[in-house]
Structures are given as C-alpha cells and as structure tokens.
C-alpha cells in the first residue's frame, strides 16, 4: 500500500532524456504477434463520470505521461501510439463509473476474448458480477478515487492558471513534474489503461500492446512448444541514457518488484 515511498537517492547521470532504443538486429516478425487491430472507427464515447472539461484535462495529462505521435517527436518518428490513441481517459472514466453499469465494470469476464480464435465470442466483454467482499471494497475505493481525480483536475487547472488542457506542452510538463502526487495518481491508471485488456475501455485498437510489440492475451491459441523453448534470435539493446539510469537504480527497482510480488506469467 506504500505506493509513494522513494528508493535510496543517488546522483543521476545527466542528459538521460532521449535515450534511443536501438535494436541492432532487424525487426523479427514474432510468432503469435498481435493481430491487426480492427479498423472500426472510435465509437461515440459517452462520458459517465468526467465532465467534458475534466476529460480533456485528464487526456492531456495522460498524453504527456505516455505520449503518442502527436505528442512527441520521438514517438512520431517511431509512429508509436500513446495514451491518447489508447483512449486511456475512457478507461479511467469507465473505472470511476463502474457502478453505473448493470454489472459493475471491475472484473472482465473469461475464459478468453475473440482475438486468438476461441469460440468466436469475446467472453471478456461480459463482466463478472461482484461478490459481496469485492462490492464492499470497491464501494469504499471508488468514491475516494472519484474525489482524488476531481481534485487532481482542479490542481492541474490551478497550476496552469486556466485550463491545463490548453496550456503549452512545456508548461504541462513542468506542472506534471512539480505535482508528484497528481502525476502518480494519473500515471498509475494511465499504465493500466494502456496495457490492460481492451475490454476495460482503454488499449483501443490494441494501441498499448502494439507500442511495445506484445501480443497480449493468448487464449485459445497459446504458444507452440518451439515458441516457448527457443530464442527469437539476437536482439541487442544499447544501454545509455534512461536505460543506464534504470540499471543504476536496479537495487531499488528490484526491491520494489519483490515487494509487489513480481514473479508471474
């Protein structure tokens, strides 16, 4: 529960900003890679919790935290989708309004989606009714989160001296750098909205998974024995900048992983 404790401090290498990921090997077409996203246009999105202004502020903040092609020149170069493209604000809005749905949108269903075969039905889209223990917990958790997000928007606007959503990106970055608690609230949920299964409302067109070349859920297909046992081939990464900074912080990072129960998958 101690989400904001800091690891041991250390001097950080300077100029750790734009560390490129340089893959020295040619791109490999990975077996089991994510299928092409369905090209369906973005559905008309009804906001259930946020006002239009609040949604604009959260979307703007999320796009600074996890930028896409329209938000950052490096991402444009790589054509790598970010929070805006993944519809993260709708993930957050859906979570905060979970109890507005007949079956609260807390736990997506199973046993599989329709992305890798299966029986043609996306069972993940049928959310699982809450048991009393989870209802009791989320009836406590969500009101607090709703308050926190509403407050976060107010703080962002106040710092921007107007609407955060329309402030220059350099100013938005400065505000997000300064307001650590607000940043971490939005960032943690933005990461969920990027990489969770799309049934929760984010990761649209599998934008989050595509941005990291990860196939996501794999049932009913799974993987073949050679895909499990063999290397995909050489894939060198040049460690500099932010990657070097991460390795310098490895003791703290791995300690945090241990605390969170890292070993899964």
């Amino acid at each position, binding site marked *: *529960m101690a989400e904001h*404790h800091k*690891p041991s*401090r250390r001097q*950080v290498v300077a100029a750790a*900003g734009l560390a*490129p*990921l340089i893959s020295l090997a040619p791109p490999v077409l990975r077996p089991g890679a994510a299928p092409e996203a369905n090209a369906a246009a973005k559905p008309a999105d009804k906001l259930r919790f946020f006002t239009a202004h609040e949604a604009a502020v959260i979307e703007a903040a999320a796009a600074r*935290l*996890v*930028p896409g092609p329209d938000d*950052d020149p490096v991402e444009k170069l790589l054509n*790598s989708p*970010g929070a805006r493209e993944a519809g993260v604000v709708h993930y957050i809005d859906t979570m905060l309004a979970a109890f507005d749905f007949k079956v609260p949108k807390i*736990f997506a269903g*199973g*046993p599989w989606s329709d992305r890798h075969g299966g029986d043609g039905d996306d069972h*993940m889209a049928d959310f699982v009714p809450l*048991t009393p*223990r*989870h209802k009791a*917990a*989320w009836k406590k958790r969500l009101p607090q989160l709703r308050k926190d997000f509403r407050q976060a928007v107010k703080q962002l606007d106040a710092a921007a001296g107007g609407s955060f959503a329309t402030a220059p990106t350099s100013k938005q970055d400065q505000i997000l*750098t300064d307001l650590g608690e607000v940043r971490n609230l939005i960032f943690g949920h933005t990461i969920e909205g990027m990489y969770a*299964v799309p049934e*929760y409302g984010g990761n649209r067109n599998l934008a989050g998974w595509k941005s*990291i070349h*990860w196939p996501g*859920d*794999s*049932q*009913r*297909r799974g993987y073949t*024995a050679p895909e*499990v*046992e063999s290397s*995909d081939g*050489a894939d*060198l*990464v040049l*460690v500099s900048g*932010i*990657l070097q900074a*991460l*390795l310098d*912080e*490895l*003791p*703290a*990072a*791995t*300690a*945090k*992983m*241990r605390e*969170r129960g*890292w*070993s*899964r*998958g």
Partner: protein
Amino acid sequence: MIVGSGAGASVAAMVLSHNGWDVTIFEKGPRLIHGWEKSGPIKTVFSNDELKYNRRFEEPDPLSEPRAFRADPGSATSIGEVNPLASCVGGGTTHWDAKTPRFWDIDFAKRSMLGPYPGADVEDWPFTYDEISPHYRTVERLMGVAGSQAALPDLVLKHAPGKRGFVMPPGPMQYSSLAVASGCEVLGLHPYDFPMAINSRHHDGRPACNNCGQCSSYGCPIGARIGALAVMRHAIHTGRVEIRDEVMVDKVVLKGKRAVGVHWVHSKGHEGHHSADLVVMAASAIETARLAHLSHFPDPHDRLGRDLMFHNFMDGFGIFLDRRMHAYRGRSTTKCMEDFADPDFPGSRVFAKSMGLPYLRGGICEIGGSQDVIAEGQIYQFVLDALGSVPGGAVKPFGTSFKTLMRASLLRDRLAGISHVAEDLPYAVNRVDLDPKHRDFRGVPIPRVTYSPGKHEQAAILFYVPLMTAVLKAAGAATVSAAVPESLADSLTGTAIPHGAHIMGGMRMGKNPKTSVTDATGMVRGLDNVFVSDGSVFPSSGAQNPTLTIMATALRNATKNFGHGHAHLGRDHGEDAV
C-alpha cells in the same frame, strides 16, 4: 464439516467421504470454476487478464478483509494486505503455479539429524520421510503431476528417495528457464525439470496446457491445471459431500471438550449454526489460527498461533541485453534447483560457524520467469519518480523516457529470474493472534500477524544472495544481475510485510504436548473432535514449495484418524512410465 476448500480440505473431504462420513464444506469465497466435479471440460471466468489479478479477483480485498501486521510486539501495527491467498472454491490451488517438489528427509527429522538450533523451536515432525513417501506418491498421482523421474538429481534422490507418482512427462521448458539453468550448470549446480500438476497431455478428462503464458497467479482458463479440485472430485463422487460457497465459519462451538458445530456468516450478512460430529479446520495457516482464537480453543502452554512461518524468499534478476526472454509464453518457471537446500552446500557450514550458528539453509530455486506488463510499467513509474525527484536531476519522470523503458523492456521481456524459496525457521515470537480493534466487512475480528526473520534467515541471505547473482552472471555474457531478499525489499521501501504466499505453522503438530497445538496426527490437543488439515500443522517450513506436503500430511493424518476406505484411489496401475 470442513472449514475451507483448498489443498488440505480436498484431501480431508476425500478421506472422510470414502470412510462413510457426510461432509459439508464451508468456503468463504465464491465458486470461480464450474464443472470440475465431472470428468470433462471445465467452465470458468479466469482469463489472461493482468488487471483482473491486480484487482484481486480471486483474493480478499484489503479494503473489506484486511489483516493487521507488526514486525514485533513493540512495533506499530499496520492494517492492509498481509500475505493473502486465493479465497475461493479450490483455495490457493486455483491460481498457484502447481509446483510439487517434496520436502527432504532432514525436514521431518531436523532436530535429530541436524541438532538443536539456539533461539528457534526446531523439532522433529511426528513422522519420517519414509512414512510420508507413499502418501506423496498418491497425491502426485491424484493431482496428475507432470515430471521426469530420470531428471531428478542425485542430491534430491538422496534426501527424498523413491519413485514419484508422475503420470505424464514434463511440458515445454520456458526459454528463460533454460537460459538460467545453463548458468546453474556452468557453476556445477543441478537444475532439473520442475515437477508440476499441469497437464502436458490430455489427462483426467482435462486438456493439455497450451502454453498461454499467464500462469502463476492466474486461474487456468482451460482447466489444464485445477489443483486440489482434482482431489476434491473424488470426494464429490461419493455423493456425500456438499460445498457451500460464500459462507465463512467464524466460530467452532465447544461444549466442554467437544466441538458440537460451528457458527457461520454468509457474505450477504445472514448467519446460522451448523451441527457437526467432527470439525476439520483447513482454511490455511493464518485463517485457521484466527478461527482457533475466535473459538477460544484451550491453550494451556500459550502455543496457539505461534511458530508462524513464511519462506525466506530471495529473488534474483538477470537482464539479458542481447536477446529477449519471452517469459510470457509457457508455464512459469519450468526448471528448479535444490542445491541450496543442502546444509552441507560447499562453504555454508563454515559461513554459519563464522556467524555463530549451527548451520544454515537456503531452499529450492524456481528458475526463469518474469513479470507482467502493467507491473513492469508501474515499476518504471516508481523508478522515474525517484529519478525525477533528485535535485538537479535531468530526467523528466514520464513521457518518452517511460516509453523508451517499455520498448527496451529490461525488467520484463529481457528479464529472467530466480525465486529462492529458502527455509524459515520457527520462532515462538512469530505468530497469529486477533487484532484488538479491526473487523472485516462481515464484522469478524481480523487476524494480526507478528513476524520478523531471525538470525538464521539473515545469515542465509548474506550467504546465498551473491551465489544467486553468480548464477545469473553465468547465464549470459551480456547480463546484468541483481538479487534481493524480501527483508531488503522491506527496508528500502518502508514496509516489512511478507508477500510470499507460503504460510505455515500456528497449529504446530507434535508429540510433545507442551510445544504443540495438535497431536501427532493433527487432532487439536484438549479437544475430542477437531482435526487440522492444512499447513498450520507444520512444525518447520521445509525448503520447498509446501502444497504437496500439506496434502500428503493431510492424507497421512486423515488416514490414521478416519480409516482406509479411500485406499484404492491414486493407486499405481503400472502406468507410471516417466
């Protein structure tokens, strides 16, 4: 009646129902797998969904069912998540990674084989390895363990001899496991195929695992792994067993020395009494000790809830800069290595002596595996936050920095791990009792865990962490590695709460009435008809994953107490050929 429906409960239900008892099982969690009672495909809402797991789909939520924790009786108490286990029909075995190593001969006879341990309550178990060995084999067969007898190293067979009940060969090995296992071999260690109760072929009416990769801590979407429910099925087949889900037992009702029944509370609030001739407690170690306290069991020697043990977890992380490890494919951690469980591991006796200790012991290492994507992202968020808050630091703690980290994936796709499940000695001060103030959403007082690692555990960390790093270094030239014990994780991040999911002790069994809560067969001392059938009876923690030993112990004890009517189940019909 039986409290709980997991590993220990399934065995108790099978034995009792096959010996003429009518059994009612009370499970406080929901049913999340359906159709397992019959041979055929199962139905479940478990899925490849990390967020669902992070939101504790199959676990208690700390906002409605918290636990209390303090490092020692003088420390402040925190309320929140303390070592939760899956809480649903099937218990922890619905989402475990199904690893089934056996404990060693020295685990059952620690005092007589290794001598006393100053400061710790080291005693022999009331039975030997040789006595439990056939029960191990029965449980392996009943659950359907995949493994290779030929692959078992000499060291393992020396301390845990005999033919295993492997009913099918191992499945595909994770690439990350193979890579780290090669590092073990370079150092002369002995990795082997981790025995696990996951189908490598169609078996028991259930399909072969298709390597979907979201395995450990996830419920199996296809029923290739159903854990204790494979045993519970034999109980259901008698027609004498009923499972009531969403019902928590909050009191065993005593009349003198007899339990006459239980008081229960439904999750929706209604409550009632259930009469019983026999009460079996199998709710897992912390919850069973909680129930014993709630029921005011006799405790003349102040042993109830004491000698609580977790494992002394240490984790190693190897980062491969020249390739991706794709640990998101296949069963998790398909190799293991038991060399560190040997108290005679080269150098360890000398090191222990230098620390003023009789000996020290690590445990089994789970080899390979990594973390998931959302977890990875939130770790980078944490690191960026730390970097960005350095005065004068040049890192913007978000944006393309974050995406660069995700694309390079040093802490997921390029990571291969080692989880070291090291022995945790029993200490009386480590215990479960009731928190004096807080209650769960049902209104039942919550358990309070008091726990700190002892001198043995700290010495084992000092000795074994560098060895784990060396293994990872040996696994690849372009490798960066780090290893971290749970207790260091605690000191860096400001908490001291164990998270390992291996929970043992509290209702310790033994021959000596002054030092045990249950007798040599798991019956509660001072009461006529209360049987304990979970990991709470363990007198020591062993140095291996505990579930198989929980079940084999339950089988040995239940057979002694209730008869042999189930003896035809899990027999070897000559087809153990692997």
